[in-house]
């Protein structure tokens, strides 16, 4: 590890990188030093790289492999499953559950994002004002986001219980008859979306609040000197300035929401009659939710979900780079 001997090099890391890349004239002497540096540098990232290959690369490869073969429980355990190309994908595209699952995923995601973001924005603006307890209360808002999802999901299940839930009891007080939140196909998707919005609000609040903090107060002063009211000030000044942060919040929220599985599975298991099935629960249902697991088609649904997530994931990375630049 002793690569410091006789260092005539600029020690700053920028200098070394620059030297290694741009100075062919002094190569001979620099090369060996730069090489040791590179070795040390790679020594430190090697464990994570190996880890990524083993524990991301391998499962993902296995997942693709699963989706391209025809598996029975027997061949899953013993090997030797037949290669069938895209057959599993054809099967799921023709499965009557697939399109509704895709549609539910879209509705679930869009509704969650819309409400999480708008409620998060209103709260961020509210908590951006100065008042007693503002910090403490804002911290308390984080709690739902930190809880295990199964805790939130089971609490919401009981709150939305048709006969004994507190929500229906409250509705009864104002004269609305009991709603079968989790057991009727009309309401199941709405119910899981409500729970998911509740969980996602803190994340939006925190990100948008930090975005507000980075807007210089001069801008506000200038705007209020110009006589802009608070409504106008928000739409003309704050909102446009928040656009990069908003984009990041929404895209990251989108990627997170596509992944949501726990809440739906615990509250409704995608039911009744697939009324709240999304791609994530559909995939799980195929692979792990039945007595006769279908890992091949389950993996195929999963890969469709990955593709969708990656499209928006790349958009997120672009937005982040743009905001950083």
């Amino acid at each position, binding site marked *: *590890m*002793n*690569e*410091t001997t006789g260092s005539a090099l600029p*020690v700053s*890391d920028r200098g*070394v990188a620059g030297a290694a890349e741009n100075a062919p004239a002094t190569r001979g002497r620099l090369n060996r030093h730069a090489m040791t540096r590179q070795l*040390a*540098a*790679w020594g430190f*990232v090697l*464990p*994570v790289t190996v880890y990524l290959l083993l*524990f*991301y690369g*391998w*499962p993902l490869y*296995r997942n693709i492999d699963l989706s391209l073969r025809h598996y029975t429980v027997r061949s*899953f*355990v013993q090997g030797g499953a037949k290669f069938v190309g895209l057959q599993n994908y054809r099967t799921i595209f023709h499965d009557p559950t697939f399109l509704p699952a895709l549609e539910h995923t879209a509705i679930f995601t869009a509704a969650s994002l819309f409400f999480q973001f708008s409620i998060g924005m209103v709260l961020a603006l509210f908590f951006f004002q100065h*008042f007693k307890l*503002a910090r403490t*209360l804002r*911290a308390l*808002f984080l*709690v*739902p986001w*930190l*809880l295990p999802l*199964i*805790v939130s999901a*089971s*609490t919401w299940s*009981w709150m939305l219980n048709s*006969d*004994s839930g*507190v929500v229906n009891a409250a509705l009864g*007080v104002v004269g609305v008859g009991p709603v079968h939140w989790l057991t009727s196909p009309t309401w199941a998707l709405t119910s899981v979306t409500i729970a998911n919005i509740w969980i996602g609000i803190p994340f939006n609040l*925190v*990100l948008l609040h930090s975005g507000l903090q980075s807007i210089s107060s001069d801008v506000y002063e200038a705007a209020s000197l110009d006589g802009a009211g608070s409504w106008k000030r928000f739409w003309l000044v704050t909102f446009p300035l928040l656009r990069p*942060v908003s984009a990041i919040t929404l895209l*990251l929220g989108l*990627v997170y929401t596509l*992944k949501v*599985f*726990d809440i739906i599975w*615990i509250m409704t298991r995608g039911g009744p009659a697939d009324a709240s099935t999304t791609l994530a629960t559909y995939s*799980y249902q195929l692979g*792990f939710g039945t007595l006769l697991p279908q*890992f091949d088609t*389950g*993996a195929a649904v999963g*890969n469709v*979900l990955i593709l969708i*997530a*990656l499209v928006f994931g790349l958009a*997120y*990375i672009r937005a*982040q780079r743009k*905001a950083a630049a």
Partner: protein
Amino acid sequence: MARRRWLRTVVGVVLTALMLFPLYWMINVSFTKDNRMRKSPPDLLPVHGTLAGYRAVMHQQLPYLATSLVVALGTVIVTVVLAAPAGYSLAKLRPRGRGALTFLLLIVQMIPAIIMAFGFYAIYLRLGVLNTIPGLIVADSTIAIPFAVLIFTAFMSGIPGELLQAAEIDGAGTLRRFLSVVLPVSRNAVVTVSLFAFLWSWSDFVFASTLDISGHHQPITLGIYHYIGNNNQQWNAIMATAVVASIPAAVLLVLAQRYVAAGVTAGAVKD
């Protein structure tokens, strides 16, 4: 002016109370007697409370809680040990291909855990590590490691170069500089990463329900899941378990609030 501020505080308290109502309800139900559980309207306060739910937790859920603790601590260790050196290298040592590696770390965070679970299941079945604690730790660490490397990189980029140069002039090699300079000053990053790794692993349901569903040692998320599946009537026991399972989140929020907020934003927005 002062009155308006007070009004805001009142509004803030009301909003917070609304937001946290489900938590209150969880606690309320956890103390409710079985025979009052299906009463209409439900009791808004646990006036005729019972500790039966918590007694059930003590009798049935302790092994699950212990497993969760072991798995979560294991995940923290694996995460910090792998991610901190990588963060140091990416921030200060400029390995070739770091752009690609960073990109990869961002991308893998988009992959839903369900899909990873399929691959892990197939692999674990072959290797015979299904339903084991180390298997679960490895799977859970995939949730935390990419995030952890990026946090460490962001944090360690802020360590002044002079500090490292001084150590280098004193003859400290790369490893020595990492261990005795970088790590000690990165305490905050270590705390943030550990905290999230712990919480995510503690909360994991996807990997537990796929890779450990027939295990002898199962985490608390499965403890709750079995409860919901088996005895649908004992909601005080279910909610009492939920309350106990929420304790780490509550404790961490109280003790390490600033780290939590820092982690939430650092994961998404780079300053």
